[in-house]
């Protein structure tokens, strides 16, 4: 278990190196393997990827999360664009508070990033399990209802992926 982060870092680094070079030549491959093996030594014993689950169920959750995320991205972009082009800017902003069930730091990071990337909602701060969200069209300021509207669609997939 101690080497999990190192192995993941090794594969990610090698993938990025090969993508940047765009070739599978012998010199490129040897240089890349040497450099990524040396850098992955620094990850031994670190807990960066500790919470990532590497099971088939997590893979399905990852794909479901990406699909949900892309649909939300397009939908909310159309919504915000329509607000920009109308002659009178019609917005109803507020900073609301929501709760998350996710325990791991990586999971909370992914949740905050997916909330931020869908326009209309913007994570302004995280304190433990409370997220403060600036919402361009706040229909409610109640904690439970805002949680249901903003967080749940991403949370149920991230929960499987990161726990």
């Amino acid at each position, binding site marked *: 278990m101690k080497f999990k982060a190192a192995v993941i870092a090794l594969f990610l680094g090698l993938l990025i190196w090969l993508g940047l070079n765009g070739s599978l030549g012998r010199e490129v491959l040897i240089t890349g393997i040497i450099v990524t093996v040396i850098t992955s030594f620094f990850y031994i014993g670190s807990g960066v990827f500790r919470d990532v689950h590497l099971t088939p169920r997590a893979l399905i959750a990852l794909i479901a999360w990406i699909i949900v995320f892309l649909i939300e991205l397009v939908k909310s972009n159309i919504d915000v664009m329509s607000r920009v082009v109308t002659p009178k800017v019609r917005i109803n902003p507020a900073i609301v508070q929501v709760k998350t069930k996710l325990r791991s730091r990586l999971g909370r990071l992914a949740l905050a*990033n997916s909330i931020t990337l869908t326009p209309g909602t913007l994570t302004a701060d995280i304190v433990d399990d409370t997220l403060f969200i600036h919402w361009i069209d706040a229909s409610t300021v109640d904690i439970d209802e805002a949680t249901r509207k903003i967080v749940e669609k991403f949370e149920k997939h991230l929960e499987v992926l990161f726990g």
Partner: protein
Amino acid sequence: MEIVGSILVLIGSLIFFLSALGVIRMPDVYNRIQTGTKATTLGTIFVLTGIAFLSPGWIPKLVILLIFIILTNPVSSHVVARAAHFNKEPMSPLTTCDKMDEAEE
């Protein structure tokens, strides 16, 4: 193939135009972040996908660039929003509620 790619690039540039318009029109910092820095992410996705259609040989590099932008963009807008709230930037008078202010007290 070429036509599909260039149409995608054109859609992306139109999204850029609308989000730049949002940066001009919105009344306070938070709403400018909403329309500005995040709508451009979708625009970048469209433009880079279009370039990938036009020139399939560049796909690995374009994928790395796209993942990099998708990962870093929310982080920078989150940091700017937190700095704005920390500095008590004026919020638009339309704002109905600020839970963060109540939590600080």
